[in-house]
């Protein structure tokens, strides 16, 4: 096994660090922030309290945990980052939104000009800016190369026409990164540019929230009608946006986050619910061997996922295994997650059918109907149907694996 830990601090320092993190979260995360963590029903927690938590962490210097120190990161070892993440999960605070910190931020670090870095990175680190991601289009879902939103140079501006969809929280965003077609020559991947928009209150730019299966707006359509943006909007070279996008896709697909830890937390919650749920015969669901088998099977899947995450993290960059294994992580993590949400629904039973938009709204003060633990179960089940669709559908991921297998 490769060692995945760099600059590992001494054990004593580690436990002191853990305590420091735990103490800080305990005093800094207020009730509404915790409520936002508790009421997460998709990959994206409630916007306002999460951004507030982002800014609180930033003031402590901890918001951009994996970032290098020069860009505002705390300079932590991998182990410290892991501890920080563990403690955040344990405390139930919301995960910070990834669009800036984990997506466009790293892309700007890698491909940005010094001017772009200076202009954009501080606002991402601080949480003063929120970036929307403009990749998908109505007719280009998992097939990014076919996108048709286009930008044409006119004097000292680009003029953008077209639309983007599945743009998470665009209605909350003040900035946006997006892929646009700047040329139709060559292969479809060529001629795509990666744009950074520093404002969204532009003439011709319209944002329309999309209501999801759970009844909440999370994604948005974004329409561009002759939207003018300056020529320095490109990240990287014009027509070379595919390189940036691929870099980010890899980043997103493999992920640095540990799904396994998250899944164990979800499973713990199911176990608690099963412990307080009747089986219809005076016993508890948790004692039903059929429940136990499904649960144990998910623990097994989670163990295998953890093992794959560890293996993936230990792979050398560009190793031939990293392609298929990153797709494999996407497939197995999302399918296991979907099965976890299915089990939760079955344990919760008919009370999970109750639609509780208000009780789910952070800060509403509305009490849930039925058991509190069941409140988020159905929204999670519904929202996570998207887990095998977005970010390159699982069908696309299997195509990728097969292609690599057959080309060996």
């Amino acid at each position: 096994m490769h060692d995945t830990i760099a600059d590992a601090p001494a054990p004593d320092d580690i436990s002191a660090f853990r305590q420091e993190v735990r103490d800080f979260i305990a005093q800094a995360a207020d009730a509404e922030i915790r409520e936002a963590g508790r009421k997460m029903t998709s990959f994206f927690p409630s916007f306002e309290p999460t951004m507030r938590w982002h800014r609180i962490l930033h003031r402590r210097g901890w918001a951009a945990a994996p970032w290098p120190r020069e860009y505002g990161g705390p300079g932590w070892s991998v182990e410290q980052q892991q501890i920080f993440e563990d403690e955040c999960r344990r405390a139930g605070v919301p995960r910070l939104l990834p669009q800036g910190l984990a997506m466009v931020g790293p892309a700007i670090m890698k491909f940005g000009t010094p001017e772009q870095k200076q202009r954009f990175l501080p606002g991402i680190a601080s949480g003063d800016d929120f970036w929307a991601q403009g990749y998908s289009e109505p007719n280009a879902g998992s097939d990014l190369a076919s996108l048709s939103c286009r930008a044409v140079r006119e004097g000292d501006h680009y003029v953008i026409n077209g639309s983007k969809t599945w743009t998470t929280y665009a209605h909350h965003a003040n900035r946006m990164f997006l892929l646009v077609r700047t040329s139709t020559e060559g292969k479809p991947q060529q001629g795509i540019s990666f744009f950074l928009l520093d404002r969204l209150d532009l003439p011709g730019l319209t944002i329309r929230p999309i209501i999801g299966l759970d009844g909440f707006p999370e994604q948005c359509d974004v329409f561009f009608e002759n939207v003018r943006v300056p020529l320095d909007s490109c990240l990287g070279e014009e027509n070379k946006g595919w390189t940036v996008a691929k870099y980010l896709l890899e980043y997103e697909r493999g992920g640095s986050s540990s799904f396994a830890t998250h899944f164990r937390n979800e499973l713990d919650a199911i176990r608690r619910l099963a412990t307080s749920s009747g089986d219809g015969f005076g016993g508890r669901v948790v004692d039903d061997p059929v429940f136990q088998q499904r649960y144990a099977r998910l623990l097994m899947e989670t163990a295998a996922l953890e093992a794959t995450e560890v293996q993936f993290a230990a792979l050398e960059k560009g190793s031939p295994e990293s392609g298929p294994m990153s797709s494999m992580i996407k497939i197995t993590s999302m399918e296991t997650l979907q099965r976890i949400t299915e089990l939760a629904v079955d344990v919760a039973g008919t009370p999970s059918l109750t639609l509780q938009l208000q009780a789910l709204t952070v800060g509403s003060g509305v009490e849930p109907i039925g058991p509190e633990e069941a409140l988020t179960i159905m929204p999670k089940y519904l929202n996570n149907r998207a887990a095998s669709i977005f970010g390159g559908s699982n069908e696309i991921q299997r195509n990728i694996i097969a292609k690599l297998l057959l080309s060996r």
Partner: protein
Amino acid sequence: MALLTDDLRAMLDDSVDKFIRDRYDFHARQALVSGQTGYSADHWAQFADMGWLGIPFAEQVGGLGGGIVDTLGLMRRFGRGLVVEPYLAVVGLAGQALAGADDGEARDAMLSALVAGDVLPVLAWEETASRGNPAWVELSARGDGGGWCLDGEKITVLNAPQASHLVVSARVAGQAGDADGIELFLLPARAEGVEVTGFPTIDGHRAGQVRFQAARARPLTFDGRGGPLLRRVLDQAGLMLAAEGVGVMESLLQRTVDYTRTRRQFGVPIASFQVLQHRMADMYIATTQAENLLNLTAARWLPDGDNAEAAAALKAQLCVSGRYVGQQAIQLHGGIGMTDELDVGHYFKRLTSMGLLFGDEAWQLRRIWQAHAAA
């Protein structure tokens, strides 16, 4: 077994088709869902006029004299149209419970009004700890000289906020879980001591939690006949639900086939991808399994006999087929299937509800085993 003539059933089916076509496009349906009452009283009056409310009831109460099997054509079409009117709850659940009541006077009065569209009784049977088990009744009924008092709580009472009356399973003897000692009671939904907490459900329907505190109610059954009646009613409701589910699934299959033919990726219709073709073949299989099992179960249904194993198998198949068809319909539609704007997600959510109502898959498999092992 169907009781009505083929001609009459065909006529009923045609009238339902026409209603769905003329009055129940997706936008009209969504307007009802987001409205105050969650259904249309006009529609309901029309149901009464068309005789739909009377299909499985005796002619003496104004019904058509059919059986539960005769409602399946309607239910299947309601599935296709995602109808939210409380037909299953009123005709299938409370109505069937009333039709089997020992108290002939209450039965005939209520059913006459039901068939005329004047009352909306619903059935309250599920409790917090009952899962699928209708014998897990903790709610108690005590006789106090002149009458009976109910105390306890029911959950997921379908269409409770819209109900005029409640038919309630209550324990008069024994302990929760005992098959014996259960009777059914009738009371107005707005009676003293009744508190209904209504809510919308994820599938665009309405339901409620109902608390009873010393609520006075009239017994519908005697001598422990409430328990067996309730089990029979739930099996019948499962049959109706399966018919609705088949309607939902065939709609989803058709929409998915249509969508994949027009949606293009990588320069071709996505229906040309073999993996998606096989997925649709499996959706067809799942739908057709449920449909065929529905038909065979209906053909062999014993109106007064024990249909437990067949009912459990059908409901289990509905759970299995419904989950697969619903999930794959979303998957094959991609992101657009995740939106509130498209009907696909609403069909999916209805199937999700169906999976849980009247006992989930594991529950039905347990019943299959029990019935099989006892045979």
